[in-house]
């Protein structure tokens, strides 16, 4: 079972390497959105600093939603997804491998770029480690919960908008805890409480989301 999952993971990463546009787009979107904030609001750093946590996490959320589009799209189109279901391997495990690959391509880069944009929005350099950790933890939850929505809306017309409507209520806690952690980090306060909550959401998502996503995809493929 682990072998098959690793194969799927490697395959997804390899295919993505050939289509860099696909996973670079959410990243570009993220940077553009965070740049928009200082342009729209007065670019005075102390003001931006107050906006930064909210702007950062909303941008992360939107970029992640955008990225979910390609989680299942190609594999559904060419029938690979169906092959996974009937392969006799644990479909949940294969799905987790796909989601892991997707996170490595979207969540991880976003989390790495995030602190830089945070600094551009006035965050002090000392805040970077906490912000980075928060983004890493949060993005994991976003990918996992997002996969449920992607599974439910597979092949549905205007699925993108519907996906957002379905996923947003589920990921709100991540947004709240993540922004809280970022605010505390920027202010120089202890953010461990919020980070623990982010970690807890991540663990909860890791245990429950793959099951729900697998069920959703199975239903959608029939």
């Amino acid at each position, binding site marked *: 079972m682990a072998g098959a999952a690793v194969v799927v993971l490697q395959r997804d990463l390899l295919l993505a390497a050939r289509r860099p546009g696909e996973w670079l787009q959410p990243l570009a979107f993220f940077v553009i959105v965070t740049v928009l904030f200082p342009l729209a609001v007065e670019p005075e750093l102390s003001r931006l600093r107050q906006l930064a946590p909210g702007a950062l996490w909303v941008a992360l959320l939107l970029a992640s939603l955008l990225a979910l589009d390609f989680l299942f799209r190609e594999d559904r189109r060419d029938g690979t997804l169906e092959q996974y279901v009937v392969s006799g391997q644990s479909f949940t495990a294969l799905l987790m491998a796909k989601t892991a690959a997707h996170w490595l391509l979207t969540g991880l880069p976003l989390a790495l770029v995030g602190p830089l944009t945070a600094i551009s929005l006035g965050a002090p350099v000392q805040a970077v480690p906490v912000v980075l950790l928060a983004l890493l933890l949060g993005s994991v939850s976003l990918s996992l919960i997002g996969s449920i929505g992607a599974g*439910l809306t597979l092949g549905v017309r205007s699925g993108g908008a519907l996906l957002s409507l379905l996923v947003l209520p589920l990921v709100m806690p991540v947004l709240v805890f993540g922004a809280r952690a970022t605010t505390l980090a920027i202010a120089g306060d202890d953010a461990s409480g919020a980070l623990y909550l982010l970690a807890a959401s991540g663990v909860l998502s890791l245990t429950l989301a793959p099951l729900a996503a697998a069920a*959703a995809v199975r239903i*959608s493929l029939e």
Partner: protein
Amino acid sequence: MNWVWFHRFGSPPYFYRMAGRWAPWFLALAALLLPVGLYGGLAVAPTDYYQSDVFRIIYVHVPTAYLSVMTYTWMALAAAVALIWRIKVCHAIAAACAPAGAMFTAVALATGMIWGQPTWGTYWAWDPRIISELFVLFFFLGYIALRGAIEDRDRADRSSAVLAVVGVVNVPIVHYSVDWWNSLHQGPTLMRADGPAMPMSMAWPLLVMLASYTFFFVAIMLMRARAEVLRRERGGAWLREELARLGAAT
């Protein structure tokens, strides 16, 4: 557990007829209790010391809020049963809950907003209970939207059932949000270990309104579920008989 009843209940014609017999009773009971509750809440209950007469909004706000969460839970339960035991009638029941649930949630939010202005000084607040109630509305709307977007009925049933079950994590959050966070909302007044915090003269109309709204919900749910069962029926003999029995009367 009487499994015979359970399986009989899952048969569309049985459910259709049973629901048809019960719905009018629930509707009648609800309609009877409503004026009693309204009279009790608006006229009989004594004026509150702190909030004066505006506290009377409680008699519509709490029942609708409570029911919005109960409706969602019921919908999620029906969805889970439908997925696990593959009982089609339960899909119909789940589908029937969503529109009424969305309405209750919207009314709860609206009455809450109206109540908030004179008491908290604001129509809206980013309070955990309000937010989680808003999410209940999003989940209901998302459920309805997902059902509408998928053409194949079976797939629509099962995908939306998964969504309903996933969204049930929000329900304990709504309920416990007042305990976990500093909230504008007060803690539980009725369901407490040491009895209600309200005097009986104020509490009884609330219980009556709660009962009335619940019976309204059951009646609405049964009616809509019957409609769903009809839509799914592909021409069983029972359908022919049923429609013939109704004749030209609509």
